[in-house]
């Protein structure tokens, strides 16, 4: 049986298909060793393949608990990781700090060698220099090595020679020409160093997990939405830092497709942050991800994150204005209603407004204290001289504006009209805010899947094996370009096929996609265009779409070539059978701008496909609640997906 396990801060989610029925299981996470929860969750299942979304790498990075790493670079550039782009992260700020380093300064050293911007050897790397490098490393108790030489993306032989020269130390070595053969030395060095810093941690974790699952194949979800074999993930940990969120987007996309929808904006609201991603027929990627201050320039699903979540704290600043976040009460102490903290959060506001029903919160496994929410918010309300409910509504509105900003950033600001998209909500709290966001953003409709609370794990279950390859080539996009393009494409394809073969996949099962990163010569930002006959027109069109203009007479260059190779995705048929404890139909009170409303509580498990009803309503399920505002109309779609339409569009 193929099983997916996604580790989250509070719960570890398990998803699998049994006798054609898609099933989910939630166990409490075990932060001291996440594998404990995973093993508990799958204990009763005959697992043959486990696809795992892991936060081990990400957490090790955020806590700076990676491996002690040596950084080797071209002599004269040893400080590159400390200088970065020489800019500060906050402008008007005496207290600004740099991100905490991941490599000790004394573990950074240079080797004499130099390449030119054309990839020619200016100063050869001598055997003596290689030996010096080896002996310097021997003196340091490092556990991992990162190598990034200037211009190595054009000529990898120096990096390869160094790697070979230090192989006798039996340390894991990450070299930049393998990890990210692209220009921009700081971004490449940072990505390589992150990989070296995290790989030993990941490798140890996976070895431990594998020992306990000797008979199962173990796959790890990558940030690009595909999986890697565990052995490889232990060498390429940098590829796994957005493991869970990537699973969420792929899950949303597969789910939406079962409803015939392939244009969605995903919206995943968690405790401390909210992730959004616009999918227009295919999942988008970015190479500009910043991991806690350090660029990670590998292709990751283009997820935009804002510090707005259920745990975000509301407060009044010195000028008396209401602010929400980015500080979060997290899971511990958590919102006031969790019974430990006493600061008002977005979750507390939802409790006060009657939108979270304490008896249904997390399947009743977690006791809520609604009176504590009220008390926490009443302090704010007093100072604002408004009622507690009005203050709670204010908290929701301010939190929403941060989320709307994120949604606009991925849609309108990139030239996409939200009206052509469905807002796809998942994660515990999204369903409470979906209607308000829909009104503001103007999306076509809202989709909330029945498995909203375990969607990332669902995404993992159906993830394909997938790998990305790239090479910076600096090529003028003229007639002479074709031959060189073909040559490099073939090289990349050979490389891809051989690596996929190592994963046990053969040529007939592979799908290749090619992309060209292009720009007008002289620009500094490239647009990624799928390879096609007239890629020049396609580039101009995309430029116009994103920036409002394009040029006829400007020379164009192809900076980087990309190849993505994908194996078959898991193709099991599944359906959903409603299950869980029954919720008696009853009325409750929800506060809105128009005051308290009488609202029916509807059990999601009792809804039938094709059924329709109008808001206001609270639709509840063991781990998800959806607040359907008045003026919204609901239809129950395939797989019990709630489809919400805003009726206000037609009436004004």
């Amino acid at each position, binding site marked *: 049986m193929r099983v997916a396990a996604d580790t989250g801060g509070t719960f570890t989610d398990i998803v699998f298909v049994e006798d054609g029925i898609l099933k989910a299981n939630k166990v409490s996470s075990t932060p001291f060793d996440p594998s404990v929860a995973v093993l508990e969750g799958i204990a009763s299942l005959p697992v043959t393949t486990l696809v795992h979304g892991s936060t081990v790498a990400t957490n090790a990075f955020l806590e700076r608990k990676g491996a002690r790493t040596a950084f080797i670079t071209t002599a004269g550039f040893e400080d590159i990781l400390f200088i970065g782009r*020489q800019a500060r992260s906050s402008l008007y700020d005496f207290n600004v700090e740099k991100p905490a380093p991941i490599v000790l300064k004394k573990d950074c050293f240079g080797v004499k060698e130099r390449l030119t911007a054309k990839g020619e050897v200016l100063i050869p790397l001598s055997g003596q220099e290689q030996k010096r490098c080896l002996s310097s490393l021997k003196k340091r108790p490092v556990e991992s090595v990162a190598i990034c030489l200037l211009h190595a993306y054009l000529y990898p032989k120096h990096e390869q020679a160094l790697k070979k020269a230090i192989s006798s130390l039996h340390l894991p070595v990450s070299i930049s020409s393998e990890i990210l053969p692209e220009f921009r030395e700081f971004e490449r060095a940072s990505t390589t160093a992150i990989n070296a810093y995290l790989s030993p941690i990941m490798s140890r974790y996976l070895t431990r997990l594998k020992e306990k699952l000797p008979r199962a194949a173990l796959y790890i979800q990558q940030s690009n939405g595909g999986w890697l074999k565990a052995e490889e993930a232990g060498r390429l940990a940098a590829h796994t830092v957005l493991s869970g969120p990537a699973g969420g987007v792929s899950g949303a996309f597969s789910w939406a497709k079962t409803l015939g929808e392939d244009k969605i904006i995903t919206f995943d609201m968690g405790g401390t942050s909210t992730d959004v991603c616009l999918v227009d027929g295919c999942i988008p990627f970015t190479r500009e991800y910043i991991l806690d201050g350090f660029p990670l320039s590998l292709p990751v699903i283009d997820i935009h994150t804002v510090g707005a979540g259920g745990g975000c704290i509301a407060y009044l600043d010195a000028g008396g204005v209401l602010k929400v976040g980015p500080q979060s009460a997290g899971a511990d102490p958590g919102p006031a209603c969790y019974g430990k903290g006493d600061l008002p959060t977005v979750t507390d506001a939802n409790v006060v407004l009657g939108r979270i029903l304490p008896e249904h919160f997390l399947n009743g496994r977690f006791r809520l204290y609604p009176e504590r929410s009220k008390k926490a918010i009443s302090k704010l309300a007093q100072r604002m001289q408004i009622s507690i409910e009005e203050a709670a509504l204010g908290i929701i509105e301010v939190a929403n504006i941060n989320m709307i900003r994120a949604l606009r950033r991925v849609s309108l600001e990139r030239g996409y009209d939200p009206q052509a998209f469905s807002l796809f909500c998942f994660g515990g709290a999204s369903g409470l805010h979906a209607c308000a966001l829909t009104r503001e953003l103007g999306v076509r409709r809202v989709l909330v899947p029945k498995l909203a609370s375990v969607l990332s794990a669902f995404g993992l279950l159906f993830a394909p094996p997938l790998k990305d390859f790239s090479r910076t080539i600096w090529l003028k996009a003229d007639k002479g370009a074709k031959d060189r393009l073909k040559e490099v494409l073939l090289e990349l394809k050979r490389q891809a096929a051989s690596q996929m073969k190592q994963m046990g996949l053969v040529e007939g099962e592979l799908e290749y996609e090619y992309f060209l990163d292009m720009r*007008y010569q002289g*620009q500094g930002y490239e647009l990624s265009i799928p390879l096609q006959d007239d890629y020049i027109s396609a580039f101009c069109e995309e430029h116009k779409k994103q920036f409002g203009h394009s040029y006829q007479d400007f020379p164009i260059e192809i900076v980087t070539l990309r190849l993505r190779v994908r194996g078959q995705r898991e193709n099991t048929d599944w359906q959903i059978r409603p299950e869980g404890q029954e919720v008696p139909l009853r009325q409750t009170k929800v506060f809105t701008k128009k005051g308290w409303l009488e609202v029916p509580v509807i059990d999601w498990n009792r809804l039938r496909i094709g059924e329709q009803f109008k808001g206001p309503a609270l639709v509840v399920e063991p781990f998800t609640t959806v607040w359907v505002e008045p003026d919204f109309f609901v239809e129950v779609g395939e797989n019990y997906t709630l489809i919400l339409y805003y009726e206000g569009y037609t009436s004004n």
Partner: protein
Amino acid sequence: MKATQAIEIEIFNKLFAAVAEEMGIVLRRSAFSPNIRERCDFSCAVFDAQGEMVAQASHIPVHLGAMPLTLQTVLPKFEWQPGDVVITNDPFSGGTHLPDVTLIKPVFFEKELVFFLINRAHHADIGGKYAGSMAVATHIDEEGVRIIPRYLFRRGKLNEEFFNDLLERLRSPLERKGDFTAQMASLWRGERRLKEMYKRYGVKKLREMATALKEYAVRAMATLIKNIPKGEFSFTDYLDDDGLGTKDIPICVKLKVKEHEIEIDLTQSADQVKGSVNAPKAVTQAAVYYVFLCLLHTLGEYPINQGCFWPLKIITKPGTVVDAVYPAAVAAGNVETSQRIVDALLGALSKALPEVIPAASCGSMNNIAIGGDDFAYYETIGGGMGARPFSDGLSGIHTHMTNTLNTPIEALEHDYPLFIETYRLRKGSGGRGLYKGGDGLIRQYRFLSKATVTILSERRRYAPYGLKGGESGKKGQNWLIQKGEKTALPGKVNLEVGPGDQVIIETPGGGGWGKIEN
């Protein structure tokens, strides 16, 4: 304040700021100058019909603080119509220095003028005697093309004759055209977003909220002023020289902290000089604003708009280095003198708020402009940050009035006939103290072809000061290596170099804070 405003202020603050931020994204991603695309040397802001700043995207302090004066100067001189765009780079009409070109677009709802959108970007070249337009010059006309405020678009129609003529006078006109187009695209995008806001909220609401935001900032500033001890505090710091023989140029700040306002008197500063370290008034204003915005930040996250500036009375005397008049050369006023004004003002404030104010930072943007037959390149190099009363200063970073990124060496070497020999921290350059000043940087260039090089740098003679017994940071140094011989270069210099020649720039460290305890 009405109760509902406590909620709406935050919402509208974000809405207006989003417009400015999106304008910045469009500009950066479609621009051509490395200055704009890699180094982010540009700024965008939204102003109301009175010419007061409502929101800005955080980019470059020296731009943002200067833009209000630009609009104040330009606004009454034009008869604004829908579809107009006014262009200027005139330092004597609220500009900063010639390479910073500003575009201003009025935004009309129905027929009513409600907002202005502005962006300002540092172009890689704006003509003049030397490539990069950042030379050691004596007259504004030598520094490049000066565009007195005028219509670039009138009622939606581009003034092609003017535009083509302008491009012809600049080096790499195609690239410049691309940069101007990116600036225009950014304005169109901003306008579209404001119009959407208008449709959603109506003009009355937007006006009301723009005013509420400014008043909110005023209240925040009042809290700040309340926390500063009342009295007079003075400080004088010095510019090394003007590159043409005038040395030890004083910048004098006399600070009067009153109940509800702060007077910043700079009238005792030196008369304007021959070389280009003269700062137009807009630059001085920007430097003062910067310091107070940093202080405001110590109280929390506040919206930055014109309201922050209302309680600040800046007094200067026309014809001085802090209020230059025609025909002063001003290229370095923006990048160097602005930093010294900050240092002098912080020095004065350190007497009022000794536990808040950091020691002097690098104090120079360490500008280098390199031009050849078919290229013009310009960059600035960071230095050490002054130590703070609670922590060490940061190393190898841009401080105060700038925050431009470095150009990746791999991009630089690919695009230009330049080679970087080394780029690293300058160890031991930060001043010692209880808290240590940050270290400066070393950047060593080798030229692969004949080129003209201009260096504009400061803190080569006067070191960044320490505070409370902390030592000063190390002064910067510039070197030339020609035919194997290494010679010291002055802080400001124009040079002719050939293939194989090298220039080394060592930037100053930050001052230390507090006595070292034994």
